[in-house]
């Protein structure tokens, strides 16, 4: 830590108004099997320094960033990163005089932080013998194939884990160390008959089930228990009718609702997007600053929060990458838009006293930007279970795991496709329908929410590959939710 503290002190002496320096050692293991063979396995280590500086400019400050690979004691790599950060900041400052005025760079206050944070791990994923991991994965693939019979086309399963050991020192006195660990996995069966191809995944497409922790995360998913069911559902999809088109009641089960929250609440509440800073890649946001506290985002049932303190969740940590301690921030309260995901810079720009602690970088070699933490739909304290919600619905569609996702650059106009859906008739799940799609616009959709499940139905999900930034950064984020019901939603199969 002393090396980092010395580096930021030197940067201050050389004219930086603020500086922070990180060292991150990143370890990963990925193991994937498919149809009886190991398809992918590697153990990866990457470590290096990322240095960020703020130098004076006509609009208050200009950021620079430099990153170099190296171990914790590699003073030369740290120095090279610091030099690169200063050079890029000075070049950025030179541009501030081209268009005078504009937003000033100021940082919200934060107390200097000291300490250590570590994810609670019951069983170290990296210490589990390879043979045990292979036995699990081959076993569930065999189970899926056995259940699918002759129509099985492909069965695959994967597990993986990541451990990040991070040191951070800032020029305003913060020195913190964190050990963040997550693990997870998933499985997939593809079936075919004639020209028809269908698939099911468990527990969800994309990254599977991922959470902070170790091998216990994978054990809790009970892959063997789920294998026969998803194979049978995949077979049912081969002969299922397409999802009927029309306007109906939709219940989103938690794997799909998690992605709905991600795309239509998480991203639009990122304050850098709201200020237009992400417009060249991911886009902007319909939740512009003038709407903060004044805009009806959804119905009174809708309460959304950002919380990095949730134990076991993928977006939890001790401090963000500028040393702001993990916090909980309301984003939507009883349907009203009340908060953003913020950094120290955007909090100051919004006139807020403190950052929400959302500035994070994928790795040592990326500039930290505003990212989701755990953005969740709060359960209704007296809300129903999924089956009670279905029983309370006369006619509608229950949407399962996500299959496709698309939303416009303001996060308004969306369309989601799911792997599977069930028709609901007179309070009962009836037939399976294939290729279900639903779409709408964000405030209208959330305003159509008339029921949110209870605490017992709440489930925390994790996504590993939230893409944002340029160069692209993939971030691990969490989304918790119970199932929820939405009235008058457009559905169909194409």
């Amino acid at each position, binding site marked *: 830590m002393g090396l980092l503290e010395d580096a930021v002190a030197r940067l201050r002496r050389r004219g930086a108004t603020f500086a922070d320096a990180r060292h991150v050692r990143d370890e990963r293991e990925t193991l994937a099997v498919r149809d009886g063979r*190991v398809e992918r396995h590697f153990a990866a280590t990457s470590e290096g320094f990322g240095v960020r500086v703020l130098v004076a400019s006509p609009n208050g400050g200009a950021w620079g960033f430099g990153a170099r690979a190296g171990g914790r004691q590699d003073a030369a790599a740290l120095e090279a990163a610091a030099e690169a950060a200063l050079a890029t900041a000075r*070049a950025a400052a030179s*541009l501030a005089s081209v268009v005078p005025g504009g937003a000033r760079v100021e940082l919200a206050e934060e107390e200097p932080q000291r300490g250590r944070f570590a994810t609670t791990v019951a069983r170290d994923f990296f210490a589990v013998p390879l043979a045990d991991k292979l036995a699990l994965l081959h076993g569930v693939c065999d189970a899926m194939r056995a259940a699918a019979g002759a129509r099985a086309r492909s069965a695959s399963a994967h597990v993986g884990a990541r451990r990040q050991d991070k040191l951070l020192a800032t020029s305003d006195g913060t020195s913190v160390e964190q050990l963040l660990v997550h693990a997870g996995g998933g499985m997939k069966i593809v079936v075919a008959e004639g020209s028809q191809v269908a698939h099911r995944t468990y527990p969800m497409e994309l990254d599977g089930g991922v959470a902070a922790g170790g091998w216990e995360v994978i054990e809790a998913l009970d892959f063997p228990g789920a294998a026969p069911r998803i194979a049978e559902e995949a077979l049912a999809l081969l002969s299922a009718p397409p999802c009927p088109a029309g306007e109906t009641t939709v219940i989103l089960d938690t794997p799909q609702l998690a992605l709905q929250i991600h795309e239509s609440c998480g991203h639009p509440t990122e304050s850098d997007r709201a200020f237009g800073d992400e417009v060249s890649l991911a886009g902007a946001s319909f939740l512009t600053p003038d709407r903060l506290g004044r805009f009806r985002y959804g119905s009174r049932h809708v309460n959304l929060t950002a919380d990095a303190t949730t134990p076991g969740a993928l977006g939890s940590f001790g401090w963000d990458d500028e040393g702001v301690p993990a916090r909980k921030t309301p984003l939507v309260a009883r349907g009203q838009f009340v908060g953003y995901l913020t950094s120290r810079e955007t909090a100051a720009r919004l006139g807020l006293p403190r950052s929400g602690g959302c500035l994070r970088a994928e790795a040592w070699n990326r500039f930290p930007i505003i990212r989701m933490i755990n953005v969740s739909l709060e359960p209704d304290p007296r809300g129903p279970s999924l089956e009670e919600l279905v029983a309370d619905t006369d006619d509608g569609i229950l949407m399962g795991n996500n299959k496709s996702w*698309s939303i416009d650059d303001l996060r308004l106009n969306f369309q989601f496709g799911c792997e599977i859906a069930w028709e609901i008739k007179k309070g009962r799940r009836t037939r399976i329908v294939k290729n279900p799609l639903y779409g709408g616009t964000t405030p209208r959709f959330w305003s159509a929410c008339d029921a949110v499940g209870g605490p017992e139905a709440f489930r925390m999900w994790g996504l590993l*590959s939230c893409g944002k*930034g340029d160069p692209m950064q993939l971030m691990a984020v969490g989304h918790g939710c119970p199932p929820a019901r939405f009235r008058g939603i457009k559905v169909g199969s194409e």
Partner: protein
Amino acid sequence: MTRPSDGSDELIKRLINSVRRTGGEAELSLHATRMGTTRFAGSRVTQTGDVEDLTVQARVAVGDRVGSVRVNAVDDATLDRALAQARALAAAMPAGSFAGFDDGSAALPAHAGGWDAETAAVDAAERARLIAPAFAACARAGWTAAGCCAAGETTLAVATSAGAARVHRYTRARFDLIAGDGRIAGRRSRDGRAWSSVAADHDALVDDAVARASRSRDPAPLPPGEYDVILEPHAVAELCEWLAVTAFGARNVEDGSSPLAGRIGEALTGPAVTIYDDALAGEDGAPTAPFDAEGTPRRRVTFLDGGVAREVVHDRASAALAGTRSTGHAPPIGDELFDGGPVPQHLMLAPGDASVDELIARVDRGLYVARFHYVNGLLDTRRALMTGMTRDGLWRIEGGKLAGPVANQRWTESFLEAGRRIGGISRDRALVAGGLSECWFVCPTLLVRGWKFSG
């Protein structure tokens, strides 16, 4: 730390020596980058950085078992340790079907070259000099500037115990400008392997972005329906990016999800559509890569030839499984988004013979589309059914001429079906860098009849 710009000879020698020291069957594959980026919005710099990184993948085979380890250093001790760890992992793996490491016997194919000294030397100050006129021009027109300017270099190197020793360097540069106010946007961008080509005619590019923004004021609503569309190269490239990951890789065919699965030799689109991967020719300024992460020489692969399904790309493992030879398309090391097996990284759509103005003149009532946003190609991969939005420029075409702006629209369309409704293809193409990963697309402007918009 070895920089990408350090001597290639010294680098490859180091890899070779390490492979020799370890004994047995081994491979070291390196991917190193130095990239400087300046990102801006609201006519101020929002993110900037100068980053050097590398990934080395060590693979060791013990019989037909393979262990794989990745590290981010190239000192002898780290390489030796990575190879030893890979050997230990290999010993713990179950019996497999090791396809062998490249033996280096095949000569590297001729390629267009790819490294440019000027581009490799571009620093933050040089990037700022290209950005400044854009800030000023946008301010004069009452807009702000957003976008990105980047330049850097990549080194690829592979050494195997079987005898391969290959190294290649290439550079790349990018300038992307959105003139606008957060809602209205006019956008132009250039990608290339040389800074000089990206910076050429800079004022014209900036002026065009500003003019496009000005022509996008007060967009009108559009009733849902089918419209003839002119798709600019960036819009076409987004479709191609999804085809790259859902249709044109061997694994897509293995699991039956590709539209080409079981249909080789069949016409999947109309005859106007020819799509191929060519990492060698450097068409329209595309970076080149004569071998893949396994050291296998790349070859041109044609996926759709006049609409007819022909072949897909392979790495060594998928080729062994399919009883064929690798096409040199192993996925790049350390790219988390390319975990789906072999993938085309230099996708080209063959040009036609029309000018863009001639294409517009063929449209009586339609839309001119600058870009798509957030396309998703997973709806029905067998049909290449995709959905997405328009962004950064959508205008009506009336009577063969460009008319007023239209509000952004959602569309859902099958690429295969749209490929049977091609009304023309431009002879000029543009290089577009992939949005998610290190891949490039060279695409013309397309006229497609009856594109489906849902509002």
